[in-house]
Structures are given as structure tokens and as C-alpha cells.
């Protein structure tokens, strides 16, 4: 990113110094001053095109200064990329997500359409099926956003490895998971609190700067680098209480086992202490949890039904309080261990002040409530009021987009959810997450699908899809997937798709073909023929006559093909060199039989024959060739499709043959016919519309003389 310009006086565009914090980026264009004009325009993506022009130079005196040196360039166009480079997800990764989500999105849309088509099925059965489809879609997208790392396969586990190395979590995936948990996954609705515990374990580091995660991570670094007695370190106890509050039981147990009393040489002297540490570790690892199963490596005991769980939970708490009130604590001489362990017990007993001290962010406090105070919390109302309470207790926590989204979900406020998605996570998220929002949620469904006057009679859903499609269209690599989204927009989609297809460059035939393929898929015949016309005209203009004619023929563009035929007519009468005649002949060949509905082509073919034999006569001049030429001439002159303006050029071309030395080549009647034509031509010449051919002025008289001579000779011959 370029730095701030040091002196605003040098800038091309003056700015007011009193505007708050103007950010000035110098554009290095390399054009020498004075700069005469600056043009700025958007190009693809985040690029700006800045054209800097110098004043037009005065006419060079000698006119021989063709080679303009670098110092004297008249101007330059530079591309400026806007946007910060330090985003969480790189552009390339964003594109990868965009590509990957297309098949899932398209599949879901087609299922939606086919379900709508079979709407006679009972509504309830459709609904049960529907959320399963959306869940499949959601899982697919979730996988795209990054997979959690597989547990390390090393046989010997490092005891100091408290937390498994984890893939860098992204806000995008955290938000997606949150929406999946609350909106789609009906299977986990009975153990929602535990789902949130899992969620926090994955994404705690995203909440703010200092979190339990960052503390435990710091502790891990300390442990691996320092050879200290861990139980003397207050950070050890602090990290452990945090991990326990957030429910990372495996980490807590691992940390406890690092306690100094486990060391072989100390076992004798610190027996009671060690017993207490182990007792807490056992209690931690046997914590009852209201969930069907636990992932490998996680601790706790799972209970599927509420009564079983309550019974186990009561029993477990009883054990904790018994240990808490036991007399062994008195015998524990190590102060930090005693206080630390009792703090852990208090956390497990759900003592709010201990929990508050152990957690950093309100979300962590919120989650610890589910673990140790109210494991059976159900319903969004309860969640919401609990979240409000935790926020008050941890008022220092700054707000971020993820938390805004979370509050929006708890508050059953789809507008807020959408706004947060669009504000912090961008158009991709909004366009794809709307599918999650509307599952089994009538309110959101109406909100998103209602057509709004203020949006130009389109729904919010369509609006966001259009926005996303526009983002895709602006990049030369992703524009090809935009049609999938545009096709799902009933009102404006097709129109924008047509514009998108028109906009694509036609320089390279592969691009044209890719474009035409999309037209074929969406059955846009008129667009495809327009694209082919544009391509044809482009190639024709650039001298690739074959390509030009090919595309125009594919487009069945009679108008332009006839124009080309007209251009060929224009050549007639001009003296045609050997080389350009071949060129010309090739073109007639190319045009084939496709043009010429008006008979123009028939004329061209005959004319070609005439010219060809004329050429032969000029080369070797055998009598046969000369006769054949005259035959062609007669055919041309007799034929009604021969335009009148070519009569004189044709006759002028054959003057030499009319004056053929050896014998007259035309009969009397033939000559008379030609004379009549010539007469007709003289009459037309008086007409105001007559356009003069570029023949020498004496052409008419020389032709007339030649014909008269021929007539005379023919009469003699026939006598």
C-alpha cells in the first residue's frame, strides 16, 4: 500500500485540507509533467484505471520524428488496485469457496423447484425432507470453508501438548456453523447447549484479543520452553480454571497430570496432595454431559435422556461437594495447589463469581452456564436472557460481527442476522446463508421472499443473490458461475444475465464459445446470435475475413453478409491484380451458398468466371478462352440479376476482346444487344441518381467505338 503523499501541493487533484483524514495515495504513472488530463474509470474487480495524458504536442517541425522516445510519451494508463491486502481470507481462497459452493447451491435450487412442483404432497413430509436437504447443503459448504485438522496420528502422545494443533479458524466458518446449529440441524436441537460448547472450543480465538484460548496457548508455550515447577506458576492455575470453565476437560486433565506431585521423587512427600489432584482429575473426566456422543479424545460421560442425565449430574455434584468439604485440604501444604484445586471445584459447582473470574469474554461465561449452572436450558428466550445477563457481567467485552450475529439469532431477528452477515462477512455469505435462515421459519421466509416496492419489486433474497452475482461478474475468472445465481432470480436475473453475456470480450474464440455455451444452457438464442454478430463484425474489422464470415453465417446475419457481398461488388470494375483477385475469389468461396437470396451471389460467381477467363486471355490468349470470355460476358449482360452499374465496367474490361484481331467474337445480334444496353446506360446517365463509376471519362465512347467496329466486322462475317 503506498504511503501518504508528503506534499499535497504536488497532487493532481486538489483536496480540501479540512476534510477529516483524507487518505492520499500517490499513483506512479511515470508521465512527465505537465499533465493535461486525468481520466479515472473502473475496470474489473477492485481495479481502477487511471489515464494520465500530456497536452497534445505541437506539430513536429520536420515530421520525421517517428520514434518517440520514452521521455516524450504522450500519456499512460495505470491500473490501481484498491483494497487492503491483510484480509482473513485471500482473494484466491474466496474464489475457491465461490467455485465450490456452486454445485451445492445449484443442487439445492433444483430440489426446491422439484419439491415445489410436487406440492400436492402433504406439507409435513415435505418439511422433514427439506431440512435434511438443507443440512446436506450446509455441511457441504461448511467443508469448503475449511476442514478441522485430523487428530495427530503419532503413537506416543506428547504430555505437554495440551491443545491439538488446529486449523486457523475463520469468522466465516464460525458464523456458518452457528447458523447451521440454530436454523438447520434439527437432530441436535435436544442438546443445543453442548453444541455451543463444541462451537466455542473451535472458535474461541475469534471472539476478542484475550480469550481463554489465548491464555491456554500462552501457557502451552511457557510449559514447553520453561523448566519450572508448574504448580508455583499462577498462570498454570489461571489457564486451567479457564479451560475448565469453557469445558475443555481433556486439556484440564492433561494440565493436572503435569502437577509436580506426580514426579516420582516427590510422591512420598506429597502423597495427600497428589491424591487431591488425582481426585479432581477424575471428577473432571467423569463429568456427565447431556449429549448423544463425544468426539474422540474428549472427556465426560454422555447421557441421552434427561432423567438419566439429571440423576448422574446430581450424583457428580454430590461427589464434588463431598471432596470440597473433606478434611484432606488441611493436610495439603502447598498453598497454590490447595487454592487452585478448590477454585476448580467451585467452578464445577457453578459458583458464579469463580466462573466470572475464570472467563474473559461474555460468550465464555455464557457457555460455562450451560456446563455448570443450567445444563438443561432450552428455547431461544432463555438463551437470549442468559446472554443479556452475561453481557452485563462482562461489560468490558467489545462487540464484533460474530457476536452481533449470535445476538441476532438468539433474538429471533432475521433482519439483524442478515445485516450482520452482509456487514462483516460479505455478499457470498448472505447469498448462501439465506437458505439456512428460511428452513422452518415462516417469519424469515416471508421477510426474505416478500416483493418490496422499495427494492424495485424484488425480494430481499433476490436482491442479495443479484449483489453476489454482480461480485462474481466483475472478475474474469468467476463470471462464468454468476449465471447459476442469476438464474435463481425470477425478476431481474435474466436481464442481468443478458447484460453479462453481452459484456464479455470477443477477441478470442475460446471466450466466445464459452459464452455461447452459457447461452445454449439457458436457451438464450437471441443473445447467442447477437454475440456471434458482434464477434463476426470484430473479426471482419480486424482483417480475419474468414472468421468474420464464419460467425456471421453462424448468426444467420443476412444483413451483414449482404453488406459484405456489396463490398465485393465495389471491387468490380477496379483493375484487379492477380493477388487481390485470389483474395476476392476466396471470399466468394467462403460466402458459399448461404448468401445471395437476391441473386447477388449468382452474379458474383458468373463475374468470377468472366474475370478468370479474361485473365487467361491476357496470359496466353488462345481463341477458345476468348470465346468463353465473351460467352460469360453475354450471360452477364443478359442476366437480370446483373446490376446496371456494372454494365459499363464489364464492357470496358472486354474492349480488347471486342477488337480481337483474328475474328469478331460476337454475332450481329449479340452486338446489337450490347449496343442497346449501352444506349440504355446513356439514358440513365441523365438521371439525377446516377452514380459515376471510376472509369476514365472516355470509357463510354471507347466501348461504343469497339462495339461499332465489332458490329461492322460481324456483319461482314455473316454475309
Amino acid at each position: 500500500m503506498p504511503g501518504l503523499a508528503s506534499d499535497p501541493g504536488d497532487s493532481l487533484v486538489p483536496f480540501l485540507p479540512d476534510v477529516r483524514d483524507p487518505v492520499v495515495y500517490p499513483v506512479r504513472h511515470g508521465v512527465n509533467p505537465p499533465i493535461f488530463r486525468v481520466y479515472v474509470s473502473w475496470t474489473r474487480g477492485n481495479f481502477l484505471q487511471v489515464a494520465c495524458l500530456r497536452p497534445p504536442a505541437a506539430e513536429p517541425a520536420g515530421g520525421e520524428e517517428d520514434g518517440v522516445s520514452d521521455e516524450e510519451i504522450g500519456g499512460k494508463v495505470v491500473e490501481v488496485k484498491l483494497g487492503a491486502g491483510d484480509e482473513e481470507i485471500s482473494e484466491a481462497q474466496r474464489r475457491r469457496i465461490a467455485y465450490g459452493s456452486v454445485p451445492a447451491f445449484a443442487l439445492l435450487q433444483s430440489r426446491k423447484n422439484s419439491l415445489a412442483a410436487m406440492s400436492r404432497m402433504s406439507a409435513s413430509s415435505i418439511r422433514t425432507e427439506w431440512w435434511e436437504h438443507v443440512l446436506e447443503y450446509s455441511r457441504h459448504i461448511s467443508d469448503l470453508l475449511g476442514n478441522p485438522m485430523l487428530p495427530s496420528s503419532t503413537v506416543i502422545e506428547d504430555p505437554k501438548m495440551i491443545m491439538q494443533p488446529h486449523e486457523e479458524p475463520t469468522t466465516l466458518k464460525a458464523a456458518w456453523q452457528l447458523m447451521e446449529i440454530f436454523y438447520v440441524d434439527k437432530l441436535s436441537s435436544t442438546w443445543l447447549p453442548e453444541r455451543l460448547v463444541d462451537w466455542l472450543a473451535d472458535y474461541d480465538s475469534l471472539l476478542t484479543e484475550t480469550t481463554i484460548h489465548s491464555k491456554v496457548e500462552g501457557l502451552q508455550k511457557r510449559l514447553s520452553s520453561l523448566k519450572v515447577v508448574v504448580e508455583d506458576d499462577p498462570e498454570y492455575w489461571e489457564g486451567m480454571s479457564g479451560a475448565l470453565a469453557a469445558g475443555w476437560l481433556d486439556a484440564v486433565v492433561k494440565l493436572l497430570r503435569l502437577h509436580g506431585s506426580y514426579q516420582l521423587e516427590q510422591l512420598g512427600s506429597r502423597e495427600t496432595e497428589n491424591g487431591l489432584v488425582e481426585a479432581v482429575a477424575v471428577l473432571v473426566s467423569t463429568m456427565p454431559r447431556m449429549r448423544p456422543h463425544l468426539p474422540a479424545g474428549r472427556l465426560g460421560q454422555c447421557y441421552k435422556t434427561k432423567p438419566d442425565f439429571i440423576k448422574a449430574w446430581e450424583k457428580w455434584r454430590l461427589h464434588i461437594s463431598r471432596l470440597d468439604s473433606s478434611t484432606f485440604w488441611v493436610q495439603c501444604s502447598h498453598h497454590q495447589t490447595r487454592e487452585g484445586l478448590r477454585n476448580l471445584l467451585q467452578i464445577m459447582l457453578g459458583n458464579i463469581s469463580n466462573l466470572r473470574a475464570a472467563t474473559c469474554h461474555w460468550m465464555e461465561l455464557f457457555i460455562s452456564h450451560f456446563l455448570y449452572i443450567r445444563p438443561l436450558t432450552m428455547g431461544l428466550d432463555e438463551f437470549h436472557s442468559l446472554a443479556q445477563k452475561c453481557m452485563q457481567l462482562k461489560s468490558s467485552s467489545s462487540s464484533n460481527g460474530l457476536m452481533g450475529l449470535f445476538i441476532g439469532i438468539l433474538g429471533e431477528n432475521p433482519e439483524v442476522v442478515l445485516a450482520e452477515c452482509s456487514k462483516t462477512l460479505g455478499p457470498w455469505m448472505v447469498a448462501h446463508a439465506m437458505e439456512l435462515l428460511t428452513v422452518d421459519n415462516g417469519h424469515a421466509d416471508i421477510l426474505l421472499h416478500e416483493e418490496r416496492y422499495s427494492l424495485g419489486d424484488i425480494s430481499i433474497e433476490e436482491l442479495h443473490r443479484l449483489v453476489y452475482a454482480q461480485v462474481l461478474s466483475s472478475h474474469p475468472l468467476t463470471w462464468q458461475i454468476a449465471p447459476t445465481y442469476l438464474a435463481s432470480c425470477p425478476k431481474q436475473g435474466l436481464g442481468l444475465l443478458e447484460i453479462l453475456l453481452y459484456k464479455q470480450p470477443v477477441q478470442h474464440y475460446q471466450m466466445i464459445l464459452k459464452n455461447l455455451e452459457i447461452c445454449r444452457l439457458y436457451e438464450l438464442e437471441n443473445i447467442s446470435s447477437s454475440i456471434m454478430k458482434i464477434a463476426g463484425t470484430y473479426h471482419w474489422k480486424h482483417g480475419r475475413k474468414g472468421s468474420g464470415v464464419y460467425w456471421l453465417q453462424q448468426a444467420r446475419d443476412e444483413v451483414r453478409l449482404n453488406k459484405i457481398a456489396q463490398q465485393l461488388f465495389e471491387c468490380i470494375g477496379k483493375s484487379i491484380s492477380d493477388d487481390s483477385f485470389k483474395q476476392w475469389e476466396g471470399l466468394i468461396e467462403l460466402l458459399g451458398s448461404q448468401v445471395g437470396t437476391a441473386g447477388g451471389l449468382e452474379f458474383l460467381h458468373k463475374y468470377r468466371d468472366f474475370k478468370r477467363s479474361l485473365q487467361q486471355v491476357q496470359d496466353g490468349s488462345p481463341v477458345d478462352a476468348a470465346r468463353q470470355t465473351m460467352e460469360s460476358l453475354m450471360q452477364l449482360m443478359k442476366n437480370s440479376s446483373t446490376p446496371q452499374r456494372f454494365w459499363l465496367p464489364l464492357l470496358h474490361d472486354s474492349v480488347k476482346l471486342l477488337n480481337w484481331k483474328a475474328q469478331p467474337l460476337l454475332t450481329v445480334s449479340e452486338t446489337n444487344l450490347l449496343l442497346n444496353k449501352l444506349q440504355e446506360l446513356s439514358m440513365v446517365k441523365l438521371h439525377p441518381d446516377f452514380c459515376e463509376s471510376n472509369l476514365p471519362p472516355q470509357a463510354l465512347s471507347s466501348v461504343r467505338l469497339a462495339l461499332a467496329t465489332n458490329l461492322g466486322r460481324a456483319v461482314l462475317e455473316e454475309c
Partner: protein
Amino acid sequence: MARSGDLHFHRFPQSKSVDAVRWLSPLSAFDRFVAAAVHDTDAASSSLEIHSLTVDAADPNSPLFDLRSSWSSPSRISSLRSSQTPHKHLVAAASTLAGSLHLLFVDPVDGSIDSELSIADDRSLHAGPISAVDLQAGGQACVSVGEDGRVNLVTVGESRLDHQRVHDSRGLVSYMAARWASPAEFATGGLGFGVQWWDQRKPGGLVSQFKGNWARGSLTGIVHSIDIHPSRKHICVVGGSSGTVFAWDLRLQQQPILLSGVSLNETTQPISESDVWEVQYDSYTHSSNINSAPSTRILPIMMCSEDGILAVLEQGEEPIELLAENCAINAFDIDPQNPSDVICGLEWESIGILTRSRETMVRY
């Protein structure tokens, strides 16, 4: 659809557009190199990248793909071919949209680029983009064709490239494909399914041509790729628009054999209806009756298409679909040394490696 056997497909995201891919013949079976022509639209830069590929036979699901070296191209690469020089160097010929031609000599051991020979884009070779280039076996000569209607022969000298114009149609005919048949003969293809046969020894060069107006009306298209089998030099297999793959036998000039595509009787559903970007003889798929096959029979052919199909076609048989991707397969190349492996360039900025296992591939 015929069965396709055991397949492993692995994608390597590139975060750049992949325009062409080729295998570079290796010295040993362990180090295999792949040349890929890539284009970065954000930086507006193009380059040719040499990657090494290691596929563990025991675990074909996790091949390794490492960038070894890279050469930055002055313009986007339009066509890429590879070969081997007599001095055991690997050579890649790349043509660009600006009309320049480059020959890169790659070290067969470490995959680094040793030297480069070029013809600049000063319109002397082609006016405008070169649409196709083909390198002779041995890497001694190249043929290049373009939409400008020129056919050029480029000979590789010690330290320079010399070129000579075989034909110039001045834009009346545009060429989109070229393929050597023998050291003296090559075939070109272009608009209207036209195929031309050239012989350097004949004056003018053009020996024979096929005009594609056999497919009447709207069924005409553009030739994208030609392949010629070394043992059947009189037959060109051609891939082009609308899913068309046909074989043109020089001995039966105006009667092409349609292998796939929208046929005139419209009874059979073609495997693809979109553009066939590349065709290649597939020596891996064994013909059901290879021994008794007369020389007119067309050997199995692999094709890739805009709608994401990679398939093997055989005359008179059901096509074998190997891949059906969600995006276009713009290019592919069968490893000449190890024909079970196919490398693909996918539209969604990635390179794919397809490995086929031997046992299940034979047609029952």
C-alpha cells in the same frame, strides 16, 4: 454407459487460471514433471510452471505436486506442447496470444529451466494470436498456425529459431489446430470443421483438404484439436464444437467417421453437446479386438469438453465416462510413458490428476 474401472482423481488448486497442461517425459519413473501454462488475472501475468508429481502407487489418493521452476511469459499462453531433444533435454513449446513463440529447455533431473529460444511478437511470425503450435518428436521443428491464416514452420537451431511461412491465407481461412503426422507432414484444422493436410516436400504444401460442410446447416463448428496415431498416419481424429469428434481418413476423403456428436439421425445421445477442447489417442484403453482390427478401425480416443466430461470413445462402442466435473475441462494430456495417468486443466483454477488402475480398465 460402459464401466470406467477404478479411478482416483485428485485436484490441486492453483489460484490462477490453468490454460494448458502437458507431461514432460521423465528420465526416471520417480520424477515426473508437468508443464502448466497459467494466467494470473489479478496480476495480469502469465507464466509457464514446471511441477514435479509424485504418485505413490500404494496410496494414489495423496499425490504430491510441487512447483519446481517458473518462467514468466510476455503474454497469455495459448497453446503448449512438449517433447524430448536427442540430448535428453525436455523441451516445451509455448505460443502466446500476442503472437510470440517460445521454446523452453528443461533439465530432466531437477526440472529447472535451462535455456529459452523465442520469436518475438513483432508480427513477423503471426499477426495476432497464435492459436496452436505443435512440436515434432525430437523437438527439432515446430508448426504454428493462427487466426490470421498463416501456417509457419519453425526450425530449432543451435541458439536461435528460424521460421519460414508455409502458407498465408491472409485471414480468409483461420486455423485453430495443428498436429504433426511425420517429419514432413502435418495436419491443420479450423473453421467450418475444415481439416487440411500439408506436406513440406510438395510445392505449396497443401496436399489435401476436407471441407466440413458435410454436417449440414447449423451443425458446423470449429476444430479445436487434432491427433494422429504414429501407426495410422492416414487418419486424423478431430475434436470440435457441439461435442463433435470425427475421424478423417485421407483415403476416404469426403466421408468422415463420426465418433461422437449430434449425428444426423439423432437417435443416439452424444456424451457431450458442448465444445470438445482436446482429443488424444488413449493407448491405455485396449480395444476389444485389437489384433483383428483392420487399419480403417479407429483406435480408442480420449476427449475433454466444456461441460466437464472426460471420456474415452471407441468406434461402435458405448463411450466410457471417466470424469463428469462441475466445470469445464479445458485441456488434458495422457502421460506417454505411463498412460494410466492423465493430467487435466480445470476451469476453476485447478489441475487434476487422474490415475486409472490396470486390472479393472480392460473392457469385458
